[in-house]
Structure formats: C-alpha cells, structure tokens
C-alpha cells in the first residue's frame, strides 16, 4: 500500500505542466507575431493563415496549453 503522509514534490506535475505549456504558447506567439508582421493584413491572408493544417494543429495545441496553464496556475497558488 502506497501511503503519502509526508513528503514533497506533490506539486511537481502542475509546476512542470505550467512551464511546458508556457513554452509552447510562447513559441506560438512568436510564430504568429512573425507571420503577422511579414504578411499583409487582409481577409484573404487572415483566413488562409488559420486554414492551413499546421496552423490548425498549432492553434489547437495553444488552446489546450492555455487551459492547462491556467488550471495549473490555480492549483499551485
């Protein structure tokens, strides 16, 4: 039987998840900022950007990271 009465590192998972998701979102931010600064800001360009396969995956990853990041922030506060 595994008894966890004393000890440490119970928050490690949240702590680590918060930092990994932060890195993912930071990378997404830099990529999005780079794309936006390079291209022209028209409806066609805007729609095409979010229609691309890699961008859909990246945005979904960002959304999941955001939820987990906020959740772990509450858990470790």
């Amino acid at each position, binding site marked *: 039987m595994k008894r966890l009465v004393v000890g440490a590192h119970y928050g490690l998972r949240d702590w680590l998840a918060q*930092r990994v998701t*932060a*890195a993912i979102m*930071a990378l997404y*931010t830099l990529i999005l900022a780079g794309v936006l600064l390079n291209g022209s*800001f028209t*409806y066609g360009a*805007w*729609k095409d950007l*979010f229609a691309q396969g890699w961008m859909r995956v990246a945005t979904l990853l960002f959304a999941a990271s*955001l939820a987990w990041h*906020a959740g772990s*922030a509450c858990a470790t506060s």
Partner: protein
Amino acid sequence: MASASAKKIRPKYLSLPALLFEIRLPVPGWVSILHRISGALLFFPFVAWVLYLLDTSLASEQGFDYIRNRYFALPLVKLGILVFVWSYCHHFCAGIRYLFLDLDIGVELKTARLTSWIVIFAGLALTAVFAARLW
C-alpha cells in the same frame, strides 16, 4: 468582551496610510503581482473576447471588415485591446524572466531588480508599438 471604547492601539505600520504609502513593494514584487493580475485578466475576460474576435473576423469578409474598420474604431474597444495587449506582453516577458529564475539565472538582488525594470518597460514598449499600429 471589553468595552468598545477601549480602543486598541494598532502598530503604526499596519495603519492604512502606512500600507498605502510607506510599505512599498520592491520592483520584483510589482512584476510578480502584475504577472498574476495580467494572467487572471487574460483568462477572464480576454479568452472569451479573443474567441469572439477570431470567430467574427474569420467567418466572413463582412465580419472581418466590421471588426477591422468599425469595431476597432470604438474608443472602449481600443482601450480594451490596449489592456489585453499590455496584459499579454507583460505576462509574456515576466513569464520568460521566471523561467530563467527557475534555472537559478538572475536571482542575485541587483540582477533581479534590473531584469524587473526591463520586464516592466518591455511590456509597456511592446504595448506602445502595438498601439502605434492600431491607430
């Protein structure tokens, strides 16, 4: 209970003026509390707002034009966008600072204060750059 008239003399440094004007947060403390405030703001209300903006601007060309030319022209919307952009930039810069602090980089008092100032000014500068593009 003792009578209410027997007033307790409170320690000076817990008085309201002391809390407001005498006990001041050091700069890293300001970065920290602003990191939390901006983080909370980014989750609520800004997640919902950004989803609305993305949805409307991507759904149709009319929606895109509406957001870009009419919605963003509203003063209150501009103010909201500025608060959002500042929250994002500050949270981003402060977050990167914390990632370095986690690695024990920049934990000396002098460096920590310097990087705190850098984070505060970087957040404001990035917001100013964005504001210049918005107007």
